[in-house]
């Protein structure tokens, strides 16, 4: 009963496809930003350094005390005391190689690696101060925070674009449904005049339209996923954001929500629009 083609039909399919495509991109961007934020947060949070500077005789005792504190702190995965060679390697850029480090009263460095949950660095600092007065925790917070904040904002922006694109898609599908129904006003009128019940007419349109929107959105999602897949793969280095664009594992299931959402919106938009234009006919 519903004309199978025409520009309004193409419009529905196309706008669903285009918006689905954009939504998949935004989704990929947002997921990548989320992962980046997580990575920066955890990687930077996980590696910290404790420096123990004390008179020569106390160093060993304080190191042991600090180790005790660190080992009983929840959220810390491993703790390692750096030996002289490692410390020397760290200092070389600053003081060159010709220096007799063995004879110097160098502080002792302890590398701390947190686990996923992370640890409470303020609490740790206080406990260290109590147990080993010469110990200083350097958790690189000054370096970490702006980066984490930036990645977080990027994720927020991704989510914001998803929200915008979703709203736009919905509005576009609603309007396309309205336009198509307006173009088919004659069909609705004739059907009503020859005794078709509202449910019959609404059903005919809703089925057609939902199918169109889902088909369009599926097409767009497919193309979007393909495009994301084909994005040139940057090496997995520290910068990491670009490398992270794309879906990972279960993340590939996310875009599949797009056609479902489009179908849902199309279903209700067509239903309400059809009922409304029917209400104008007796």
């Amino acid at each position, binding site marked *: *009963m519903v004309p199978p083609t025409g520009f309004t039909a193409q419009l529905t399919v196309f706008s669903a496809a285009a918006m689905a495509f954009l939504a998949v991109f935004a989704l990929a961007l947002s997921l990548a930003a989320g992962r980046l934020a997580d990575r920066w947060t955890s990687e930077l949070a996980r590696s910290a350094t404790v420096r123990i500077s004390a008179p020569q005789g106390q160093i060993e005792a304080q190191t042991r005390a600090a180790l005790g504190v660190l080992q009983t702190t929840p959220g810390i995965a491993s703790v390692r005391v750096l030996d002289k060679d490692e410390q020397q390697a760290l200092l070389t850029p600053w003081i060159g190689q010709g220096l007799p480090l063995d004879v110097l009263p160098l502080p002792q460095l302890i590398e701390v690696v947190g686990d996923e949950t992370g640890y409470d660095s303020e609490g740790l600092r206080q406990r260290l101060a109590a147990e080993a007065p010469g110990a200083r925790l350097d958790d690189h917070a000054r370096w970490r925070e702006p980066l984490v904040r930036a990645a977080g904002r990027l994720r927020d922006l991704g989510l914001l674009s998803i929200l915008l694109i979703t709203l736009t898609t919905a509005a576009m599908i609603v309007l396309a449904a309205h336009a198509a129904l307006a173009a088919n006003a004659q069909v609705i009128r004739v*059907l009503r005049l020859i*005794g078709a*019940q*509202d449910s019959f007419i609404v059903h005919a349109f809703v089925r057609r339209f939902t199918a169109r929107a889902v088909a369009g959105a599926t097409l767009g999602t497919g193309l979007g996923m393909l495009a994301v897949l084909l994005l040139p793969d940057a090496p997995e280095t520290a910068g990491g954001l670009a490398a992270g664009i794309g879906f990972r594992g279960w993340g590939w299931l996310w875009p599949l929500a797009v056609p479902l959402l489009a179908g849902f919106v199309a279903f209700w938009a067509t239903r309400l629009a059809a009922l409304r234009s029917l209400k104008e006919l*007796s």
Partner: protein
Amino acid sequence: MIGLENVSYGYGDGELLSGITLDLSPGSFHFLTGPSGSGKTTFLKLCYMELVPTAGHVRAFGRDVREMDRDDIARARRRIGIVHQDCQFLDHLSIAENIALPLAVGGRAGPDDAENLDALLGWVGLGNRAGALPPELSGGERQRAALARAVIMSPDVILADEPTGNVDWEMSKRLLSLLAELNRMGKAILVATHDLNLIRAAKTKVNARVLRISDRRLQLAGADL
């Protein structure tokens, strides 16, 4: 089967029809005449419930239209065959599909429909145009198709608005005899027309009453034809 009781109607600015009482009972045959713009189409719209009277009562198959919900109206319309003045079709379906549409809509499509449809198309002289789309038909062909669509459900009441306005005299007589035959089977028939020759021809075949809208009222026009 359709009864109007003291019905009035106006499109807003004053009344167009007022105090109209009429009963379309089984086996009755009415002609409706009146000058252009006097309200014939409006009257038919009241009968098939597209318009609700501003005063008075319209009853369809025993129920007051004001008390019927939308689905009741849809069901009642399946028992009324309507030929609109400007024939209304679905332009993307062939003429045969358009004529069979009431069957599909009423969920009544059956095995012997194809045969019925062919016979009906032959009767209105569209046998060789069955596959054409409505815009490819001539004016008269469209009117005949509209009549075919109106009778395919074998409705209890047939309302026809100028069904012969674009049809030549031979075809008019043929359509009239189709309506007369349906009338003899007990259908109530109401034809709005300004073609007095058609009314005269009908009087030789059926017992038709001629109604005339004049001065916003419905009058029986009898002997003067």
